[in-house]
């Protein structure tokens, strides 16, 4: 009985910076970044919700830009800086949003929340004067099934007002 190694199961030695720490691993070429972070590094804060790029639960930051961790191959992050909810919590980047989300109960089950916070932070940085409609539009790639979104919009608006 023959066995075969699918081409995408071939591994590539890859070095990347995850939350400020340089990491070198042999990574299966087919492995997605969110799976690499979760399975190889134990960074389980990023969640795989749909694994086809729609729900946004796996939103991560690569070289400062938000990406879908389920549509990015881990090897594509070679030589790049990857920031996850864990790192951005520890260094205080998300502190104001986290505080506002907490006070406003802008999360229920919390599964979408890490991705939602990264997407929200992206908008706070790029467009701190966004209207409610613009906030809603920006978050349209991040599904939340619990809150109905209003509390999330409120929390982000509060942070933006605080920054102005």
């Amino acid at each position, binding site marked *: *009985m023959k*066995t075969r190694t699918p081409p995408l199961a071939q591994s590539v030695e890859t070095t990347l910076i995850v939350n400020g720490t340089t990491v070198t691993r042999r990574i299966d070429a087919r492995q997605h970044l969110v799976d690499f972070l979760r399975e190889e590094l134990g960074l389980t804060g990023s969640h*795989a919700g749909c694994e*086809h790029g729609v729900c946004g639960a796996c939103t991560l930051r690569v070289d400062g830009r938000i990406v879908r961790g389920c549509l990015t191959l881990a090897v594509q992050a070679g030589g790049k800086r990857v920031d996850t909810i864990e790192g951005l919590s520890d260094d205080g980047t998300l502190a104001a949003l986290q505080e506002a989300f*907490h006070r406003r109960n802008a999360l*229920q*089950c919390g599964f979408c929340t890490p991705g939602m916070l990264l997407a929200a932070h992206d908008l706070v940085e790029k467009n701190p004067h966004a209207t409610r409609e613009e906030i809603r539009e920006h978050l349209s790639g991040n599904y939340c099934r619990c809150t*109905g*979104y209003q509390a999330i919009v409120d929390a982000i608006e509060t942070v933006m007002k605080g920054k102005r």
Partner: protein
Amino acid sequence: MTAQRPSGGYVGQSVPRANAKRLLQGRGAYTDDVRLPRLAHIVFFRSPHAHARIVRLDLAKARTMPGVIAAVDGKALVEYCTPWVAVLGHLKGIKSAPQHAIAIDRVCWQGEAVAAVIAETRAQAEDALEAIEVEWQELPAVTAMSDALAGKTVIHPDLGDNICFHRDFKTDGFDDVWSKADLVVEETYEFGRHTGVTLEPRSIVADYNAAEHTLTVWQSTQAPHMMQDIFSRHLNIPEANVRVVAKDVGGSYGIKVHVYPDEMAAAALAVMLKRPVKFIADRLESFVTDIHAREHRATVRMACSKAGDILAFDLDDLTAIGPYSVYPRTSGIEGNQVVNLTGGPYKHQQYRAKLDVVFTNKNVTCQYRAVGHPIAAALTEGIVDRAAAKLGMDPADFRRKNLIADDAYPYTFPSGIKFERLSHHKTLDKLLAMMDYRTLRAEQAALRKQRVYRGIGLATIIEVTGPSPAFYGVGGARISAQDGATLRLEPTGMVTCIGSVTEQGQGTEAIFAQIAASALGVTMDKVRVMTGDTGVTPYGGGTWASRGAAIGGEAVLQAGRALRSNILDIAAAILNMDKAELDIVNNEVVNKLTLESKLPLVELGRVAYFRPDTLPPKFQSELTVTRHYTPREYGFSFTNGIHASYLEVDVDTGFVRLLKHWAVDDSGTVINPMLVDEQVRGGVVQGIGAALFEECVYDENGQLLNGTMADYLVPMSGEMPDIVVGHVETPTKQSQLGAKGAGEAGTAGAPAAVMNAINDALAPLGARVTTQPFTPERILKALDKI
């Protein structure tokens, strides 16, 4: 009882949830985050056909693939997991066929598991799926409800027909009243099946210890004790040897309160392989295996007098549930709820109903958030609006005329359900004031002249919450309607609260901390809450049917009051004072009259645990108490609410723009207004999803056509309106806490309100829609534009 209701303290305050902090930092513990030594990964080979015989299933090649530990079919699993039949004694005549963890010989829906592959990694297991060889013989698929009812092809020949459950109901005076009606309105409504789409897919990690014959299961579930019982009985392991742990659960809404064959297979495979295994459904599997709900076609007729009094309702509901009634709650409950609830807010005395629940070759359906309520509300409120229009009455006035009066309670509705006390008129008045109804009507009329088609839709609801054993226990299901809470004062003055109701983000743990702190007289930072572990918590039902606050909260309150009394016994002994002179305020025992500090709890704890020798000789302190609660007086803590939707229909494109939504809910004592508001808002948006976007679309062969997150539309932030929430508080007198449930309210009423608003917008054009979801295509068809 009213005098004993908790006042002051934290009850009634919008306190943020302490346990949300870990989730905000990505430091939660969802089931997929569990890592164990020797953990193996399960994937399932699933049927591509809706109905087919498995002629040959060859797993040999899959077993030779890299990393594969085992490949298992249904026959191999039978000795580890017995099949089940989902029926309940109180749903007379309900029937279903035996269902196995993995299909044997035949598949009955697209997505049914046919084999499991277990490998060292999930990717390796998925590679091996491609090496599985199957020869199928396709069988005729029954997909249309009418075909199922006609029974030309019978899915389970042993059952004789495709009817899972049938119910006929008629009040004694129905025919007489019906024959004398001045006006009868009739309409048929259709509801697309949809599903919960929890962002965290169904997840299970199961570990079997062969030396101890113990099974530990980490599961994303709402009902750990129910699952403990089921794993025990079907895997033949003593219940005491089964532990179910539900840590963080990433959304549930009723999806995660059922027995899923693949999860049973995962637990059985842990036993077979004597090692820990993990199964995490991927999103494509979720769409074809997570329970669906609400595929109904119902004709409703309503009889009225010329004066505008509703006299009687007549309902004929047909619903399809897939090939099996879902274990252990059955798939008969949703239709039964539609019969129980239709017409429920109104004061007519006559009612006739007929229900048929049929099997089809599609994915199974079962109880999803607001079970039956959105159907009943749409049928009731749709036909009520229709009658109001025929009578030339304003929809709000017509409702006011017919809603059961606020002083008419206790009240028994013709379907047999009993209301302790509802507040329809108060909620209606509050809603109309909040939305400024008359002004909005004037604005709508002005805009119509400019060919802007806006609609206002109202929907009154009644809501089943806090159920007694009348829901499942009386039918023979081993599902607890009772819940418990343990409170323990620690030596440090901290309080540990352990509850049997589970947390999926609603804020169960937060309100337990609020209730415990208020009952004891401590600050909230002193309370730690634990839930979701059958090895630790009292026995209980978990979370479903809006029972967490109403039932679990009462258990916490009673435990808190008992512990407070015990603490004061100790304080009285230490201080040599009369217990009646003492109180607990702000973490200290104080003089009740002067509030003078007498003994900090941290000092009381030190003495009670480490220097009991200094207490009177026969005195034994008891700083751990457990209390349970189950409602008895009423089968269900019925509550009520009302919704309004304001929207605009683009009559050229068929698109609906939601402008605003209002909801007034009566959930009894409100423990945390912010959390109740957010339950309502989240529920409203799920209801809007049902009304406008969500449908599991099947073709005539039983193939799901839109089973991806990209194709199955759920509400996104950009298209949702702001939602204004108001409260009326009518506490239940059954409990000291007085809380009723709030979890279903939003989902129950929103679809009917949106439907009525769309039809109100379309009314000047003579068009009307009655098939959910109200897609642009359906609206344009109603307008005769396509």
